[in-house]
């Protein structure tokens, strides 16, 4: 021990005790802080080891990526047989869209990111110009994908399928349901009894029944409600149902946001002499939407995942393509591979969406921390 003398206030800072900082400190605090904690760590390590050992081998190292049938796959190796995917990857992405026209899908998909960028990232440079593009994008994409204009061949809706169909259903549903959801939320909070009752009935009905029954209605009954002779495509009918369904959920989320706004805000708006629409436009919605961003994003992710239900009424989304592949005697019984592949696609896109929502939430958070 040193016996050096220090003047008051000049004692040097000592390093923290060893074992509380750095790598060892972190391990001690986070993995082995107590007996039960140590046990938990050991169990977790064993679990992770078995998972990696069992799954990675099956998934990757013992897997077969190219073969003509399941039997051939099994001859080569005993892991996953990804040949069922690689042989039909075009169908999984584009459905039965004619091969010569697939560039149209590629272009609309790539430009979709340009169209969405100014909406998703508020401080993008040249945002105003890009917003113009976002405005015309729906028409642009419709013309490109559907065809029938400017010499582009018209493509039947029944040929749409695969991940392309998922994205079309999801994006259209999301874009259309937000405005309807906002109107429904305002309607539910309205002073006018008739408007309020109607909104409540619509919202509760849509939230009360399973989506699958609504899709059955779309596929088998919606034509009865139209003037005799009208016949519009099943794709449009399904999009209408998706839109209404998620609009009802979005309405509930936004209502929560509206109710969270302090009463003083409305009183201040009244004091400034704003009318209902001015209050809504400048006071209610900016704050309510900001609060409800996580909920809205969750609803979007839910809608995106729910697009898989169209397989039940016979549309060929990735699940439909997968089931068609499994019905082929060559690939019979490879359900795990097929469904895991589709699951991976959904995981990547939904996880990206939820990360974006977290980022936006933090960015818009003006609380004092």
């Amino acid at each position, binding site marked *: 021990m040193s016996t050096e003398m220090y003047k008051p206030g000049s004692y040097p800072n000592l390093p923290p005790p060893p074992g509380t900082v750095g790598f060892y400190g972190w391990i001690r605090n986070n993995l082995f802080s107590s007996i039960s904690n140590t046990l938990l*760590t050991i169990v977790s390590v064993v679990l*992770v080891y078995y998972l990696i050992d069992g799954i990675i081998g099956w998934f990757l190292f013992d897997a077969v990526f190219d073969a003509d049938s399941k039997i051939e796959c099994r001859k080569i190796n005993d892991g996953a047989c990804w040949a069922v995917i690689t042989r039909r990857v075009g169908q999984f992405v584009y459905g039965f869209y004619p091969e010569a026209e697939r560039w149209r899908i590629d272009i609309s998909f790539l430009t979709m990111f340009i169209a969405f960028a100014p909406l998703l990232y508020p401080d993008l440079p040249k945002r105003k110009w890009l917003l113009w593009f976002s405005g015309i994008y729906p028409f642009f994409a419709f013309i490109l994908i559907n065809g029938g204009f400017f010499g582009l061949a018209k493509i039947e809706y029944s040929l749409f399928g695969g991940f392309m169909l998922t994205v079309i259903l999801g994006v259209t549903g999301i874009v259309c349901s937000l405005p309807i959801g906002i109107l429904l939320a305002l309607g539910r909070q309205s002073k006018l009894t008739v408007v309020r009752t109607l909104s409540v009935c619509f919202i509760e009905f849509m939230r009360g029944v399973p989506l699958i*029954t609504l899709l059955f209605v779309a596929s*088998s009954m919606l034509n009865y409600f139209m003037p005799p002779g009208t016949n519009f495509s099943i794709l449009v009918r399904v999009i209408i149902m998706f839109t209404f369904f998620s609009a009802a959920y979005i309405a509930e989320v936004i209502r929560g946001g509206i109710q969270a706004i302090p009463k003083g805000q409305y009183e201040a708006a009244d004091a400034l002499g704003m009318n209902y629409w001015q209050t809504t436009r400048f006071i209610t919605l900016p704050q309510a939407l900001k609060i409800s961003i996580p909920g809205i994003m969750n609803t979007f992710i839910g809608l995106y995942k729910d697009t898989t239900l169209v397989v039940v009424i016979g549309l060929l989304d990735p699940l439909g393509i997968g089931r068609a592949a499994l019905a082929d005697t060559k690939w019979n019984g490879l*359900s795990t591979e097929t469904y895991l592949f589709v699951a991976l696609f959904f995981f990547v896109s939904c996880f990206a969406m939820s990360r974006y929502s977290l980022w936006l939430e933090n960015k818009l958070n003006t609380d004092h921390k």
Partner: protein
Amino acid sequence: MSFLSYIWRNEKSREIIVQIFVLLCIGWFLSWLISNVDANFKALGKDISFEFLFIPAGYDINQYLIDYNNRDSHLRAGIVGLLNTGLVAVFGIILATVLGISLGIIRLSKNWLASKIAYWYIEFTRNVPILLHILLWHGIIINTLPHPRKALNLGDVTFLSNRGFYIPKPLTENGIELVYLFLVIAIIFSVLFFKYAKKKQDLTGIQYPVFWINFSVLILLPLIAFFISGMPISLEIPALKGFNFRGGMHMSPELAALTFALGIYTAAFIAEIVRAGILAVDKGQREAAESIGLKPSKVMKLVILPQARRVIIPPLTSQYLNLTKNSSLAIAIGYMDLVATLGGISLNQTGREMETMVIVMLIYLSVSLSISAFMNWYNNKVKLVGR
């Protein structure tokens, strides 16, 4: 002129005018829809009638909780389907709750590794559509489990095969009434004792070990009765006969896949709800509880959980509701629930889309409305009283 402008400028009268206008629009729209339906039905020569419910259904259902055969009516087929929906919902809810709460707690654990495993489990599960979960589990059971002859054998009593799971079935014999009677007595005793102990604590501050006493009474009394009356419960163990198992309880691959998928998927959401609920309790509450000397278990039981419960219960109920509604996806793997019987086969056989869908939707609607009514009642009951 000035009268009209007065009516429009007066808030009251303007509201009435707007509402009448909205009502007229909606009324016109509805009558347009109904006239369309009428015209379409006339053109097809159809009518609306619910008599089809009482004619024989003519199809088989592979799993029924009440007696059913294909000569029974469509109505009975629908009820069988409804009960099947209820069965899978109950199984799913139990699995989801147990798994979800454990995951939520592990997610909050101080152990970095365990918490990360729970995190990735939750993210992987909830970002994949429920329909995929169902198909994946169904595929795994059908395609990777062995045939009944080579079934996975768990201790010679439970067998897993691609025709489903076979578990022992409890059979009751004479004298079981005594066990039931003792069970009822034990329940009554524990409720009374709970009330008594609470009253005593309020008056004097003396605490009894209520949980342990009630727990042992509930276990011991029926057990004593079980032995006194000569062990009236026996297990029927499934046994391989020919190509399949006989005896025991059979859980079809569809029911098993649906239970797993619904339970595991919903558990991820429940875990997040539990975590958010516990985190929502102010840090100062825990610190205060610790500073007045409560044990960690008491801190949890008396301070954290009662406050977390208020945040957890409403979204938990809506997850249960979602699970029940998601069970309608059973149709994708051929589990005969309400949508598959009444809204599926009955619809196709009778061609009565309108009637069957209306019934199916009304049933789901009444279930969810009654659950949300309960939720509102509960919310009001536990709401913090604002001043």
